[in-house]
Structure formats: C-alpha cells, structure tokens
C-alpha cells in the first residue's frame, strides 16, 4: 500500500518538500544540541522541563483524541464515522511518533534511553508512560494497517483485529492518564498536584484530537476529493464542543480551589498565567497574552459552533475556523501554559521565566514537521485506498 504515497500531484510534493525543509533545519538543530549540549535550550536549573515536554504532553492528547472516532464506530456501531476512523488511528501514530521524538530530544543522554527497559522501574510513572505509549503505538499500527488492508481487498477485517481495537480503547485513556500522572503525583508542585489533572487532560485531548482530524478532513476534501460527510463533521464538532466545555469547566474549578482556599501555592501559577505574578516589585507576566488568547479562541470557537447548531447553518469555512480556534486554544493551554506555568515558581520560591531558544524552537518545529509528514503520507495511503475501492 505504501506505493500510494509515492504518487501524487505537484501540490502533494510541494507540501512534503515544505515539511522536509523544517525537518532538515530541525535535524541540524538537534545535531547541535546532541554534540554541544542542552545548554542550547532555554531550560535551566530552575525550569528544567520546557517546550519539548510540553509538546509531548499535548501530543499525547492528540493521539488519545482518536478515541472519539474509534469509540462511537466500534462500540456504538456509529456507521457515519466509518470512513474517518482510520484517520483517527493514523493521526495517533503520527502524534505518538512525535511524542517519542520529543522525549528523545529532551533527555540529556539519549544513547542511554534503553536503560528504561534494561532497568525497569515500576514505581516511576515514566516507565509506565513508556509502556502505554509504545503499546498504543503498536495497537494503532496493527489496527490501522490490518483494517485498511482488508478494506482494500474489500473483505471484512479478520476477527482477531477487533481484540486489538477494543484493547486500544482503554489504552487511549491510559496514555493520557499516565501522562497526567507524571505531573500530578509530585509533591511541592502545587499547580500540577491536582486530582483533576488527568480528567482535564482527557477532556482537552478529546477536543484537540478530533479538531485536528476535522481540519484534515476539510483540507482533504479540497485537495484529495475525500469527503468525510457533513454528518460526520457535524457530529465531531458536537464532540469537540462538549469536550472543550468540560475542559473549561475543569479550569474554572482549578481557579475556584486556588482562589477560594486562598493558599498562595495554589494561586501562584494561575496568577502568573492569567494576571501576572508580582514578586519583589517585579511583575512576571510572559504568558498572560497567550493564556487570554487561549480563552478567547476557545470560547470564540465554541460560540461559532453554537451559532452553527442553533441557526442550523453549515459551511466548511466556519467549521474549519472553529476547529482551528479550539485546537490553538488547547495548544496554548496545555502545550505552553501547563508546563511553564507549573514551573515558574521554583521549589525555593524564586521566579524564573522561560524563553525557548531558536535552536530549541528549530528542533520543536522539526519534530512537528516530521509528524505532519508522517500523517500526510499515512492519510495519502488511506485516501488512496478509499479511491481505489470506489473506482
């Protein structure tokens, strides 16, 4: 089936070339980091996790978001998602590959990475995260490929693959739960030490993942004659709305707990993220514009969807804008604010702000481009098979 990715029009190749340029820059930046050291990043003694880990966290969510297609289709037999379920699985593959690349970019001794397996440590959440991420990656590769192969041959998928499909459902939940557990079990990190972290991660994941899939569907409708169907898109926007609302609700609860209890540690990060944190006469507020953009985009997107549902109008453009707004909002919230907000006050209650360096951003963009390239190729294959079957 891979040959389907090797045939495309000039736009397809232009897009791949565009992504490859970013990958090349990212690769050079990574080589610099590999040979010179991680001082090339903006991370430091006080802020020792940064852009890499926050992207990782966000992308685990994108990977888990595919669940919102798999679950209705396979468990509730919701046939409308039949054409796009494969997109959820392939998106998960791309997102997980990005996750693993971000982890490798983040660790100081990448060549020792196998120590995770050679010295397995069940009390470390990172060990379990590795297990569930690799497991979920494997499950999606198996399910996606087998089901697509069956579709191409126009036969029913073999029965055994459904075992993996059903296992992948709790796995999708587990990847993001365990990723949240990396954060929410650490003493002394007040912003993260919240039982609502994992549910909040899941809620934002179930909005961000489908939002990206909808955007991909709209693009493919224009460039690849692949129509997911209006009903499927509409249903997805409903799912995105609910998930994003639940996420917003959880954020509000964090605000309530922090501000009503009036415990400084529980307010610091929220204050830093949304209003600016005053310390020794200096106000630290780097992320304030980002967080308020996140709020505006999230409610803007939700408002747009609500208008579409109430006025009963539909346009691809509105759906696309709404999904992009929600996706960017959630990226700002989880891909920036969560990690950096949680770390801005160090254990000695000094305030250190984070400025990613150009080299670090180069690597980050390179990894995102790699993921997009992988997803493009996988989607090209999936769409190619659909066209072949239809023809």
């Amino acid at each position, binding site marked *: 089936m891979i040959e389907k990715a090797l045939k495309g029009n000039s736009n397809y190749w232009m897009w791949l070339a565009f992504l490859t340029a970013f990958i090349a820059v990212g690769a050079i930046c990574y080589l610099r980091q590999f040979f*010179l*050291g*991680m*001082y090339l*990043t903006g*991370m*430091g*003694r*006080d802020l*020792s*996790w940064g852009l890499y880990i926050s992207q990782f966290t966000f992308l685990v969510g994108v990977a888990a978001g595919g669940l919102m297609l798999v679950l209705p289709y396979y468990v509730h037999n919701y046939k409308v998602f039949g054409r796009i379920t494969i997109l959820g699985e392939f998106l998960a593959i791309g997102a997980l590959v990005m996750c693993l690349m971000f*982890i490798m970019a*983040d*660790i*100081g*001794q*990448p060549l*020792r*990475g196998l*120590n*995770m*397996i*050679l*010295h*397995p*440590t*069940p*009390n*470390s*959440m*990172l*060990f379990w995260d*590795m297990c569930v991420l690799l497991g979920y990656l494997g499950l999606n590769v198996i399910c996606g490929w087998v089901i697509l192969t069956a579709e191409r041959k126009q036969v029913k998928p073999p029965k055994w693959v459904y075992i993996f499909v059903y296992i992948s459902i709790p796995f999708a939940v587990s990847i993001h739960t365990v990723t949240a557990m*990396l*954060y929410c*079990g*650490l*003493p*002394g*990190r007040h912003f993260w030490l919240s039982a609502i972290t994992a549910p909040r991660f899941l809620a934002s994941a179930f909005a961000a993942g489908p939002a990206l899939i909808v955007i991909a569907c709209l693009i493919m409708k224009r460039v690849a004659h692949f129509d997911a169907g209006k009903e499927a898109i509409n249903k997805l926007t409903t799912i995105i709305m609910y998930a994003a609302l639940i996420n917003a609700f959880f954020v509000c609860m964090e605000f309530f707990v922090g501000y009503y209890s009036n415990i400084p540690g529980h307010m610091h990060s929220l204050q830093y993220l949304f209003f600016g944190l005053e310390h020794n006469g200096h106000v630290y507020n780097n992320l304030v514009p980002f967080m308020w953009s996140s709020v505006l985009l999230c409610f803007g997107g939700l408002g747009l969807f609500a208008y579409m549902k109430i006025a009963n109008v539909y346009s691809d453009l509105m759906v696309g804008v709404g999904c992009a707004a929600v996706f960017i909002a959630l990226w700002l919230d989880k891909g920036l604010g969560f990690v950096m907000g949680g770390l801005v006050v*160090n*254990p*000695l*209650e*000094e305030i250190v702000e984070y400025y990613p360096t150009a080299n670090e951003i180069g690597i980050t963009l390179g990894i995102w481009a790699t993921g997009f390239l992988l997803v493009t190729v996988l989607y090209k294959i999936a769409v190619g098979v659909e066209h072949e079957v239809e023809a």
Partner: protein
Amino acid sequence: MDKQRRKFLKIAGVTALAGLSAPAVIKLTSSPALASSETPGEAAGHAAPAEAHGAEGHGAEQAAHTGVRLGMLIDMRKLYGRPDLMDKATAACHKVHNVPHIENKKNEIKWLWHAPFENVFPEHSSYHESKVTAENDFMVLCNHCDEPPCVRVCPTKATFRDEKTGIVAMDFHRCIGCRFCMMGCPYGARSFNWMDPRPYIKEYNADFPTRMRGVVEKCNFCGERLALGQEPACVEAVKEVGAFVFGDLNDPNSEIRQRLDQDHTIQRKPSLGTKPSVFYIV
C-alpha cells in the same frame, strides 16, 4: 509454501517479542533488583560507610538490620553573621566533588549553597521576621529524605536510597538525563549538567569522578569520604564553630541525636511527607 511462510513469520514474531520482553520480566520479578544491578565497586562504597558508623565495626549485614539513617543538623546560630563560613563549606564541598563553577544561573551546578530564609523555608512565615532571620542566609543541600520523591520518580533507578546508610545517591552512569528527579524534588536540591562540566572545574580532585553533560547530580553526603572514615567535607570545613553535626539518626547515642534532643529543630517542607534527614536550629 505461502502458508508455511506465514506460519514461520508468526512464530518468529512471537519469539522475538518474548525475547525482547524477557529481560524486563526477569528484572521485575527478581526482588533484589537494586542490589544486583550495582557494580561491585559501588556496593563496596556503600557498605563501607555503614561499617564506619555501625559503632563497633559491625558488618554491612548488621548495619542494614539496625537501619543506619545518616542525617545532618545545621546549627544556624553558629553561622549567623558568618557568610564566609558558609562559603567555605560550599567551596570545600564543591572542590571535593569536582563541582563545576558555572557563572550563568541557568546552567549552574550546586550541591551546597545558602539562600534567604523565605526561600529555604517558604512554608514557614517570614512575615515580620526577626533581624537575624532577615539578615542571614541559610544553608541548602539535599535532604536525603527517608521517603525521597526523586527516587520514586526515577525511571532507571539511577538515583536510589542506599538502605545501609539512608543516603540518597546517584549513579551518574545510569542516569539518562530525563530530569524527572528534579521535578520530583521539592527542595530544588538537584542540578543538571546542561553543558560539559569539565572545563569549569577549577581544581580537579582525582579521588572523585567528574561528570559528563546530560546527567543530574546533587549532594551525596560525602558517601565516598565516609567510606574512608572521613567526615563530610562541609562538616570538616567549618569544624572550628561546629555548625554541622553529622551522624546516625537511628542511633539514640549518636551526637546528632543528643543534639536533637536538646534543641528545637525545624525541617524544610515537612508537610510533604518526604521525611528529610537534615535538621536546622534557627
């Protein structure tokens, strides 16, 4: 033919999978995983301080049963107005352990340093603090917790609590540099080698390893000096005022226990349940 090939591939796949997962399974099921994975050199290094402190030179075996838990008492009263002494202790520590001197605050490495009260004890009120508290810095180092969160989160057991001494130690050769321990530590005791530390070592001490970049390091309670029957470097450096008292917290006859019985002491962030082994008289 095709069927046979398929069968072969299936069997080969299952076998490969089993082979790959076998080491993990074996590791997980063998109980003394930690002890067995230590190199002989390290094991000896850890056993020795236990001997040095198990009063009558008990073997390592007995020391483990009696449960030595090394701790430190910092009598800040003896350091008030003497930042020079605190710097001396830091300098001694950093020299003995080849800690690089990196000016840039972002990349710096520190094992033992001093900071204002409000930073060292953020859980204690510094509202209307006394003149002495406001004007003096307080020593900061790894607490060698009895329930260390850094050990709990480390994915490779590169940092571990030595059962024979209670020291929370590091295996620099196993650390993958994920910095999860730095996230887990609520005391900010750990530093990561963002750059190659070796050019920044002022005076090289051949008796202690230097580190490479990409690994985490911190105070080790001078485990290597204890093994030779010496005191920790910081204790020795300010011996003239006796600001640091070092010993076995589980031994009721040890000096540190007698001092703890005498004076009221405080600990850093006791509410987190980490059970620090470093005590302060302020």
